[in-house]
């Protein structure tokens, strides 16, 4: 009894400092009542309600999926796009920890947190889409190892674990657990290597998924090298997401950035240079894909216009914006390039998995409002979770008590 009486105030202090940001409960709750929070609550609540309804009433009542369109928004956006937009984790992690680009160290943690949240939400989206998600464990009992989806699932599972471990570094700093923090730091190099290994495999395997459907995917998007396209575009997406997210978070979390203050503009110009090169390589590869299949004539069709919009408007143009911005130190051009690239990569994933899939069918899939609301709800949840974590844990900068930490 005596001991609880002694520890109770200490615990509540801890709760107040670590969770309530130093406010008492009432002040904290009042601080939450903002219009943006209300909007977020509505969006998340709606998405969650639809999810419950989907499991209570079945896929048919919540989605517009059909026999001709087995994969819709939840696969095309939540999973395919969710995973590719989370590629900043391994891209930046390897740049800093393996290739020695230490100047990017200040933005590794937000990139890894974004990646971790992105993967978790992608898995949630996938679970909503699976007809019988509770049978997931059969992947271990009767593994279908000839399936590209098996490779995706295994690697995503392992990479999400790696991301969780990488994310635990700031969590342990937040909690002040020095011992496990030190143990984890010893493993960080290996974790970074593993993040590249698993990412290479599953980012490209997401493209391999469609190798089996040569007659169903529009020839402009189908290529025997689609898995290489997917891997290279994942790096483009990773770099661009880091820029977009850096611009947003740097403004929003200004108060959290103490100590080693990063020159965000300089970093973004550097990332823009890398982005220009990788995006141009990707554009060239896409061109190569058209040449390889001799599909030049298809460029003059309606689908060709759509393909050109994706590859010129959202690959070549941002690549030039990146190049111009990096060359003439105009960070606004770099940021514009990043936004265009992010849109373009999402467009590419949607094109491959939903829009240009079964393109010659008379009727076309349009997602239901319920599918859209789940996707919006998940994205909102990701943003809210990021903000909650970044406001408490050493994400935007390291905990000064753990100074000298490389990771």
């Amino acid at each position, binding site marked *: 009894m005596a001991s609880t009486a002694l520890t109770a105030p200490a615990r509540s202090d801890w709760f107040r400092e670590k969770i309530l940001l130093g406010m008492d409960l009432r002040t904290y709750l009042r601080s939450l009542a903002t219009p943006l929070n209300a909007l977020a609550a509505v969006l998340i609540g709606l998405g969650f309600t639809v999810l419950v309804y989907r499991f209570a009433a079945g896929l048919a009542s919540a989605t517009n999926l059909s026999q001709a369109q087995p994969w819709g928004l939840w696969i095309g956006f939540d999973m395919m796009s969710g995973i590719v937009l989370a590629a900043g984790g391994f891209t930046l992690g*390897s740049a800093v920890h393996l290739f020695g680009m230490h100047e990017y160290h200040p933005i590794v943690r937000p990139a890894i947190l974004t990646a971790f949240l992105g993967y978790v939400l992608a898995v949630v989206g996938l679970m909503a889409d699976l007809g*019988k998600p509770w049978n997931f464990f059969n992947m271990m009992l009767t593994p279908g190892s000839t399936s590209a989806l098996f490779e995706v699932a295994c690697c995503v599972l392992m990479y999400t674990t790696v991301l969780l471990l990488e994310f635990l570094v700031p969590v342990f700093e937040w909690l002040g657990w020095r011992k496990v923090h030190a143990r984890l730091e010893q493993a960080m190099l290996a974790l970074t*290597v593993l993040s590249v290994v698993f990412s290479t495999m599953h980012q*490209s395997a997401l493209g391999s998924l469609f190798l089996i459907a040569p007659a169903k995917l529009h020839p402009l998007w189908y290529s025997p090298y689609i898995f290489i396209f997917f891997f290279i575009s994942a790096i483009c997406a990773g770099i661009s997401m880091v820029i977009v997210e850096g611009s947003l978070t740097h403004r929003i979390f200004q108060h959290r950035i103490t100590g080693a203050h990063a020159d965000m503009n300089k970093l973004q110009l550097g990332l823009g240079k890398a982005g220009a090169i990788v995006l141009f390589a990707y554009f060239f590869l896409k061109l190569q894909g058209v040449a390889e299949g001799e599909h030049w004539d298809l460029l003059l069709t309606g689908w060709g216009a759509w393909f050109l919009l994706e590859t010129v408007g959202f690959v070549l143009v941002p690549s030039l914006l990146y190049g111009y911005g990096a060359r003439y130190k105009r960070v606004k051009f770099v940021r514009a390039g990043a936004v265009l690239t992010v849109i373009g990569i999402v467009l590419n994933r949607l094109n491959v998995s939903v829009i240009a899939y079964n393109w010659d069918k008379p009727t076309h899939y349009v997602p239901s409002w319920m599918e859209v609301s789940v996707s919006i709800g998940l994205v909102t949840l990701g943003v809210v979770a990021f903000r909650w974590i970044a406001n408490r844990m050493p994400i935007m900068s390291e905990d000064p008590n753990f*100074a000298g930490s490389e990771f």
Partner: protein
Amino acid sequence: MKLSRRGFLQVAGIAGTAAAGLGASTARASFHTSLDAKGENENAMLVDTTLCAGCRGCEAACAEANGLPAPASDEAVKGARRETAPEVFTVVNAFGPIGHDGDDRFAKRQCMHCLEPACASVCMVRALDKTPTGPVVYHGERCLGCRYCMVACPFEVPKYQYDKLAPLVRKCTFCPSRQAEGKKPACASVCPTGALTFGKRRALIELAKGRIYRNPEKYLHHVYGEHEAGGTDWLYISDVPFEQLGMKAVRDEPYPDKVQGALSAPPFVMTLWPPLLMGLYAFSKRRDALNGNHHEPGGAAAEAKKEDRHG
């Protein structure tokens, strides 16, 4: 750095073991199982579309054998192009008049039971499985409902119970239990015109080619299913182009082969990436050392602490 390397080895060891297992299994991408390469001894079915009278007795027999709702009446389906569905494993559609005689032609649709089924090759829980005797069977209790089989099937056969809470993939089963009893599949057992012939695949291909050679003016010189998608256990002959019977022009090579190149990559990634990346890491560290920077984990601070302890 000493500790860091040990940490690296520990984690890399665990991951390497797991990765090697994955690599070994994903490398086995070929879909030749115990059956012979051309499936000649598999049970198969020959559909002679010139003999089909469109009575739809096979539809009714299929529904009865599989416990499905009875097919709609003749009037209800006239002129409609029907697809198979979760509760309809086979349909006979009328096309025409397209024959030289100015008559309709009829084409039965159902699962083609490929020799190397795309659906089974992409199933990550092996819920779809090619049996040595021919049928591609489905294990609903394994299925997790990803619907990749539907994406993969070039014949657009697997159909999904979107309206069920524990939905299943549904398609023609090729009546494996009837086959095991030595009986014909339900559809073939009731066909009154001889349009459906059940037998060994090798014998049926000979039968089909015999009919074509004896009536070269009548038949197209093509056995649909002999090479399509690497060969199927359902074979068709016709006197009108197969496209006019609503049958897709499907490539000849086995579909699982298309993925093999990409699927053989993981072992290389797993063996080549780590040493390459560690090499780059060593390189960047050496560069740092030459530049006089310390960027090791816990570098300067840890160093200072050690000094303290010694002091």
